[in-house]
């Protein structure tokens, strides 16, 4: 396949993935697109136990973007294997399970549990959640913690392990290097920037949890910069995420060196966007007689 890329041992038919929390668990999009057309999708954030998530309101629109505080609501690992995964198991597309936990032990337990499934093609570890045990700072803002967690998950699985990085740090490259050092197959970034919005009439925060994660075109310049930086800093594949709402945006991330991309809130605007981007990429490469490897990282420096 001319658009195929590799993330560790996993070959994706094309570099178009969809981002965790913005694509349900895949089956929600079956009416709008052919799941087989994209490289794969990242599941909703999954934890060992079911989790109710945050109170509402959970989303609010901002300039060229949105804030969400879904709070990682999900049905837990057991329901995922028994009820969710079967709904997409017949599709020829990679299923990457986005996992999160509040402690290292929980991460280990979760990966170990999920290993029983053959349909899972890889894991994406979301390290943006607060480390409840150790003061509430995000796991992903301390390189030593990133390394430790990556290593712990690595010990449990041979499947591709992607570490998803938070942009709310001084230097994301440090986190990427830590992940690479501990055996990650790839890093994906960026997760949302932290932000807030208020109802000035009522003088209160719009989101029930006060703050949320900013996504959408507003953050694309930040994402593109961090992806480019990270590509320079590590040797493992970098998956670009942030503000992709068109095929042109996909190109930008590939050109600065991302091996694959994830479409996030763009799926809300157009639930067929990922398929359209996969299709456009094929046409683009054909028309230019360019290979995907030539395209990736083709930015002049």
């Amino acid at each position, binding site marked *: 396949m001319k658009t195929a890329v590799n993330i560790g041992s996993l070959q994706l038919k094309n570099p178009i993935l969809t981002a965790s929390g913005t694509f*349900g668990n895949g089956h929600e999009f079956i009416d709008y697109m052919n799941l087989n057309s994209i490289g794969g999708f990242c599941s909703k954030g999954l934890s060992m136990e079911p989790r109710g998530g945050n109170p509402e309101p959970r989303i609010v629109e901002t300039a060229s973007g949105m804030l*969400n505080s879904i709070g990682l609501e999900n049905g837990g690992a057991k329901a995922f294997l028994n009820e969710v995964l079967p709904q997409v198991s017949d599709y020829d597309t990679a299923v990457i399970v986005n996992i999160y936990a509040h402690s290292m032990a929980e991460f280990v337990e979760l990966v170990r549990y999920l290993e029983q499934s053959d349909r899972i093609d890889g894991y994406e570890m979301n390290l943006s959640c607060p480390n409840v045990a150790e003061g509430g700072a995000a796991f992903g803002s301390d390189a030593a913690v990133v390394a430790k967690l990556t290593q712990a998950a690595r010990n449990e699985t041979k499947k591709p392990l992607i570490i998803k990085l938070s942009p709310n740090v001084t230097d994301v490259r440090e986190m990427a290097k830590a992940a690479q050092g501990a055996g990650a197959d790839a890093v994906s970034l960026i997760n949302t920037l932290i932000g807030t919005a208020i109802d000035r009439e009522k003088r209160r925060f719009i989101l029930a949890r006060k703050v949320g994660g900013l996504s959408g075109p507003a953050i694309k310049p930040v994402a593109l910069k961090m992806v480019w930086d990270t590509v320079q800093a590590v040797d493992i594949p970098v998956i670009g995420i942030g503000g992709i709402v068109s095929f042109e945006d996909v190109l930008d991330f590939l050109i600065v060196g991302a091996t694959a991309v994830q479409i996030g*809130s763009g799926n*809300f605007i157009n639930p067929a966007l990922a398929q359209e981007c996969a299709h456009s990429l094929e046409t683009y490469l054909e028309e230019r007689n360019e290979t995907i490897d030539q395209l990736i990282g083709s930015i002049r420096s």
Partner: protein
Amino acid sequence: MSRTVISKIVGTKVVNDATFMISLLFEEQPKPGQFVMVSLIDNRSDPFLPRPISVFDWEDGLLKLLIRKVGRGTELFSQLSAGDSVRVTGYLGNSFPDTNDSICFVGGGIGIAPLFYAARKSIAAEKLFLMGFPTESAVICLEEKRADTKLLYATDDGSAGVHGTVVDMLKNRLEITPPDLIITCGPEGMMKAVQKIASPYNISIFHSLESVMACGIGACLGCRRELPGRSVLVCKDGPIFDGLDIFPEVPQ
């Protein structure tokens, strides 16, 4: 069937100061109570999200939306005209129950939007559609004949129609001939009041809820509502819910 399409607008109409109608091409037939997500396709990312809008009417591939200007998104929709296109994703959500006996639709303000098509499609022998508006300039006139329905409206200030609220109007009606199904859409206070005054009569009541939505298709979990004892996605599990689930403290 649900699809996402670039849909062409074939007509627009001003209904009153704040309300307008858009007619656009959408082949599939909706179920009463369903909605679509609508967004501009002008390549500008602010505003960012699509907006949920109910099916007001549909016939022969022509979908009608009745929209009230409340903020930037709906204001921008009001500036569209025939020949423009928008992205429409739908149909979304569940649908209203029906009865072949008698049914009463209760709409507050723009809440009448999803009820008209439901009224038109209902197989009930007797159909009554009660509407409430704050004042004359807010009144939305519907074509009675098309809906094959008895339409009545009230205004809070009595400047047009019956003087009073739609709930008052329903109350009077209930005392004469209570229907066996009530369907409402409007402010939640109105819904609750409807359920309250109907509770002596043992009538099934369904409400159409709203919530802020990003995707409309059950993917973002943004529209979740915590109902007493259970948590639902308004876009997927709703927007129509049994009154017992929303206000269990008010018996039907």
